[in-house]
């Protein structure tokens, strides 16, 4: 068997496993945890478009989640617009905001961009907390918005069970992974990588570094906002402190960095490794050892940055390659015999 064929079989097996998982996992709690795991993997993959490929450090992606969630929820609650349509509107709004943040800061040194994203996200949270009505829209300040679970169904993006949500976020995750894969092999992907690693050299090659970063930022914020709508429809309740929170922004960045930024598998791997840690330590140590999972995150982060600055995907990818090569040689030997 050729390595490419083995890769393809592994991918098919993985997809089959992901599709079949809800048939095995019947508990609503575990399904909920899985949905959130995919949600984080999705967010981190979006983050990776800027934070990984473009080589800057965005620390306010929760703002885009919030924009997506609030836009679609306000439109559907107060104007009867389907959340699917609201999702797109929220995405476009977020892309505009992403460009607005990136426009002045991508020309500056890296620290400024990180600080600007934090300040924007915190500023947005304070605004939302203080505004009850914005023109014709009810925002409801710190009380947040509740979506009454009345009309379930595909057009309303609202379901009675957890399984439909599981498949929605799985499709979204698969889509964004495919998109990342295509981008990483496109001219834009190479330009982003070059601009992130060596901006001067990239500019000398005629790459408009700031422009490619802006495109990545717009794409990333658009896709992140889509997940915001998903989150609102999944939990049916959004309020500024939980959705536009620095903790969410930082958790996304942590998952990406521990998994391996700038790689396609890294974000998913990071979510697979870290989400269970935070879920289970919250379930088992939540009362006795508060904040335990954040200590673990911090320690793991420092260790990974020290020993595997490219993230945990690097050694794991190497291991996988080794196994594939073994299989290939073994297959060749069998054939020769």
């Amino acid at each position, binding site marked *: 068997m050729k390595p490419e064929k083995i890769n393809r079989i592994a991918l098919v097996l993985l997809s089959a496993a992901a599709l079949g998982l809800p048939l095995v996992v019947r508990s609503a709690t575990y399904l909920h945890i899985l949905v959130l795991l995919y949600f984080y993997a999705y967010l981190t993959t979006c983050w990776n478009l800027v934070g990984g490929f473009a*080589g*800057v*450090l965005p620390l306010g992606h929760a703002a885009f989640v919030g924009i997506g969630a609030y836009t679609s929820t306000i439109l559907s609650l107060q104007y009867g617009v389907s959340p699917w349509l609201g999702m797109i509107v929220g995405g476009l709004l977020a892309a505009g905001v992403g460009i607005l943040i990136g426009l*002045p*800061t991508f020309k*500056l*040194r*890296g*620290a*400024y961009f*990180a*600080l*600007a994203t*934090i*300040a*924007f996200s*915190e*500023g947005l949270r*304070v*605004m939302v*907390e*203080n505004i009850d009505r914005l023109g014709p829209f009810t925002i409801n300040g710190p009380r947040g918005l509740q979506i009454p679970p009345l009309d379930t169904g595909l057009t309303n993006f609202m379901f009675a069970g957890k399984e439909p949500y599981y498949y929605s976020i799985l499709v979204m995750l698969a889509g964004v992974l495919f998109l990342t894969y295509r981008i990483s092999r496109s001219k834009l992907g190479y330009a982003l990588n070059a601009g992130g690693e060596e901006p001067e050299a990239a500019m000398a090659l005629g790459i408009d570094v700031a422009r490619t970063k802006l495109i990545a930022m717009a794409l990333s914020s658009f896709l992140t906002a889509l997940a915001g709508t998903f989150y609102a429809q999944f939990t049916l309740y959004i309020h500024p402190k939980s959705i536009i929170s*620095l903790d969410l922004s*930082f958790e996304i*960045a*942590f998952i990406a*960095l521990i998994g391996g930024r700038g790689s396609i598998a890294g974000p998913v791997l990071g979510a697979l490794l870290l989400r269970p840690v935070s879920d289970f330590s919250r379930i088992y140590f939540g009362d006795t*050892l*508060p*904040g*335990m999972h*954040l*200590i673990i*995150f*911090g*320690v793991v*982060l*420092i260790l990974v*940055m*020290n020993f595997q*600055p490219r993230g945990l995907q690097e050694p794991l990818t190497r291991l996988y390659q080794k196994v594939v090569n073994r299989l290939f040689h073994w297959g060749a030997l069998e054939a020769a015999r």
Partner: protein
Amino acid sequence: MIYMIEDTINGILMGSIYGLTALGLTIIFGVLKVINFAHGSLLMVGMYAAYWAVALTGLHPYLTLVLVVPVMFVFGYYLQDIVIQPIFRAEKNVREPITVIIVTTGVWYILDNLTLLVFGPHYRTIQVNPLRGRMLEIGGLMISVPKLWGFVSAMVAAAAVYVFLQRTRMGRAIRATSLDRDAASLMGINPYKVYNVAFGIGTATAGIAAVTLVPFYNVFPTVGVLFDIKGFIIVVLGGLGSIGGAILGGIIIGLIESVGPQFMTATWTEAIVYGLFLLVLFVKPAGLFGVKYDW
């Protein structure tokens, strides 16, 4: 009118304390070219140190300076030496390594949550406090005495750091490293040693800020986060790496926070601060008083 003057004075005093909390941030950025996300947590550690020093020995709160400042210097020195330096060595060729920023974030999470684990989420205030609620009355104006001392210590600390950087041999080495790390190391300066010292000084100034805050501020595990975000805003307003800018930036924030509520709901002042920050970032990223270079 009298309230207006009182608010203005109060804003300047509190603002200078904000500036003092951000002083270390600007020193560390100036030399290491890295935003220290753990700075608020270091302030929090200093506040706990001062709190326990007062609670256990019954010292006058300001006398804990002799204890807290050296302890914080050593803490910062070895934090940089043991935790952060290896990453710097690994990314020698990158001017502003992102991985280092991330490691300071890890330090932040560890320190805050360890404190939560050990001391619990309670708000603590020192019990034996000769400064509690002390007011100075000048011609009908009421001025908080601990905040006045905070103002004085902010000015003294900023001046002391400035003189240290300008007049001493180590200060010159720090400035040289800040300007050009490679050229400095060709002159026989060990840049990693300089980083340790700069980080130690930054942490020590956070210790001074902590001691001046403890007499009138609650101590709790996430107290640092409040000052962290404020600190980032202050240093960008004043110009990253500028010592005078940090104090002036702090005073601007303090003034907005204390005079603002005269004109709007108090919570809106926070939004104004973020708005001003983004405006400065977009229009004049070098900061209001920033130098073109980092020092």
